[in-house]
């Protein structure tokens, strides 16, 4: 396959070059490649990103395949320009053993249109008490481990996990939340929560555990990755730790750099705005954007969390946490961060492809480079798209961005040298 005339988002620059793909690899990048190819794409005026990698997604398989499954999740991913996604283990039953992890990996290879990697649970049944078999999970295709949805609240267990993961060369991903503090809170503690009398979660519910996790990682000289960072306070702590050389990396999600708790009020307490950690205040949003700019936050993950209509068609307080994100992550990043003059196009590629690949330890991907897998997202930055229920590929429609017009549209996604998504065409 030959892709001609597109602007490539390279690590330091944006350059108009052609890409030659042979089999599943990028074999040449250069000017005016004139190789004869059966498949040739003229991408004049378009921009090409390395295929996005989502470190944090929920596919609901096994257990709630009515909300999302490996195929529908992978289609949603491809539509969003993602070529590799990592699914969290808070399924029913949880992915806490090699049998299930291996099944996800193999089933994904069989039916999904992008790569799906299982994230293994840190503890058996995600109960926070006993470590899972890290080595076996690694053998079954897990690169990372997390009890996501819950924090490992017992500090000793987390210490053991960090030590054990060091030995087995796996990445521990921490969901930072002091659940005794967040209690039954549904919204960030703020003037809005006070005004409407809603049970609230303070920002220190996150930052206390961020602090603890960083102290542990520092003490053990172990690596830790912090999921869905949402607050100014957490960022201050991560910034300090990084300066000290602690091996900490962090992700945030589009909703934390697009929305605040005030949008919940403006959205009439629609349950699609309910997410954990909850949407923060203006100062948090500003800090997240700044942290993406200075690299305190390494990557953007979706925390794609599908929920059925019945689960979300309830009052805000009664609804489960979570929103879907795979299909809009890029457009949100482009609209709010690039158009908002926070970061440039190469930084988007870094946060959504290169850094996730590096943090997880994936070889030959995350960058448009000769020799790398041909995982690419071709986007049209001139176009806009309106988010409506009908256009969503995910089985669930729970997004606070319904009705919103976003800039930057993924036109085509190529995975391992094959087109897996093309806008306006059935796949």
């Amino acid at each position, binding site marked *: 396959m030959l892709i001609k005339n597109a602007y490539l988002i390279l690590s330091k620059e944006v350059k108009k070059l052609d890409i030659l793909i042979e089999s599943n690899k990028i074999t040449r990048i250069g000017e005016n490649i004139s190789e004869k190819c059966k498949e040739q794409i003229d991408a004049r005026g378009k921009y090409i990103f390395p295929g996005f990698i989502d470190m944090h997604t929920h596919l609901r398989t096994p257990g709630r395949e009515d909300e999302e499954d490996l195929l529908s999740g992978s289609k949603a991913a491809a539509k969003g320009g993602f070529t590799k996604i990592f699914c969290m283990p808070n399924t029913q039953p949880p992915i806490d053993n090699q049998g299930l992890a291996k099944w996800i990996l193999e089933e994904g290879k069989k039916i999904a249109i992008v790569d799906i990697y299982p994230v293994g649970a840190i503890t058996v049944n995600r109960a926070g008490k006993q470590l899972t078999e890290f080595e076996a999970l690694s053998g079954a295709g897990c690169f990372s481990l997390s009890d996501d949805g819950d924090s490992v609240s017992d500090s000793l267990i987390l210490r053991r996990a960090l030590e054990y993961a060091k030995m087995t060369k796996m990445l521990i991903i921490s969901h930072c939340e002091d659940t005794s503090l967040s209690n039954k809170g549904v919204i960030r*503690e*703020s*003037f809005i*929560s*006070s*005004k*409407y*009398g*809603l049970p*609230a979660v*303070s920002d220190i519910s996150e930052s206390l555990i961020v602090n603890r996790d960083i102290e542990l990682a520092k003490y053990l000289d172990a690596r830790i990755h912090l999921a869905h960072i949402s607050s100014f306070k957490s960022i201050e702590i991560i910034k300090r730790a990084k300066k000290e050389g602690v091996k900490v990396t962090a992700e945030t999600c589009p909703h934390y750099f697009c929305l605040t708790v005030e949008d919940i009020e403006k959205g*009439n*307490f*629609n349950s699609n705005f309910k997410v954990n950690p909850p949407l923060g205040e203006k100062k948090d949003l500003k800090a997240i954007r700044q942290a993406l700019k200075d690299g305190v936050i390494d990557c953007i993950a979706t925390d794609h969390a599908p929920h059925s209509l*019945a689960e979300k*068609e*309830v*009052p*805000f*307080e*009664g609804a489960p946490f979570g929103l879907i994100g795979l299909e809009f992550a890029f457009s949100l990043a482009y609209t709010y961060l690039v158009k908002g003059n926070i970061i440039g196009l190469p930084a988007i590629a870094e946060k959504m492809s290169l850094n996730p690949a590096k943090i997880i330890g994936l070889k030959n991907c995350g960058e448009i480079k000769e020799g790398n897998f041909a995982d690419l997202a071709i986007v049209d930055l001139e176009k806009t798209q309106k988010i409506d229920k009908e256009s969503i590929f995910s089985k669930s429609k729970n997004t606070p961005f319904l009705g919103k017009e976003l800039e930057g549209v993924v036109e085509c996604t190529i995975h391992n040298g094959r087109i897996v998504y093309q806008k306006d065409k059935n796949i």
Partner: protein
Amino acid sequence: MEDWQKKHILGVKDLTRNELETIFSLTSSFKEISQRDVKKVPALRGKTIVNLFFENSTRTRVSFELAAKRLSADVVNFSTSLSSLSKGESVIDTIKNLEAYHPDIMIIRIGFGASLSLFTDYTHASIINAGDGSNEHPTQSFLDMFTVKEARGSLEKLNVLIVGDILHSRVARSNIFGFQKYSANITVCGPSTLVPYEFSKMGVNVSYNLDEVISEADVIIMLRMQKERQQSSFFSTQREYMKWFSLTPERIKMLKKDCLIMHPGPVNWDVEISSAVKERVHPLILKQAENGLAVRMATLYLVGTNKREI
């Protein structure tokens, strides 16, 4: 009255001062009806009202039911609990089911705060908030304000003191929004654990010491202290709570002579108010209940007869 525009009564925060005035003036007329021998007018004849209570309540429900009956509406009570709902029918489904009977007004009480605007999407009926979580309880605030207006003649620029569990109180929030429309100087006072985060941004003074603020008050609203708050360590013991925040005979002596003491009821005697002062405070609290009926008649009338198309 002809210009009443609001289809729903979801919160005092959405109402204007003029709208409150309309409610109060109508309340005075409806009060008279309850003193007649035949306590009924045909104002809402043929209208169907559903009292939909997802939370236990006797007083508010009875008050609304009686108000509806005195206006000749057909009223049905639907009481259920959220916990039993979670097993089967959802809240929205319940509303959709009731919608099938074409009710004109749904009076809703529910434990979920700020949830009622969601329900307006699922019914053609007018929705009246009878208490949603800790958010608002508008008719309670109407009756409190009406009671003050009746007793003092005016609602202007009063020193209003609200005492107790502010955090979980929809009565406090509705009264803050209401009295503020009359330029009140509002102070909330309670244990620091039970005053919400950044609450002074509501435009109220915050105090943790009742003795320091009690003598200035023109109106005191004592809130009900639920005993389970002690189990969650919002306060240590009833004894300590009483020591700091209860209306005791000693504190009664510190009051302005004409200070009005109110309580949404039912009172936990010897928790928020000492039973030794029952004689001093109970008559007005019972007056509140009486006014509550008239205020609810006024509210139902305004919403039930408004011609505004959907």
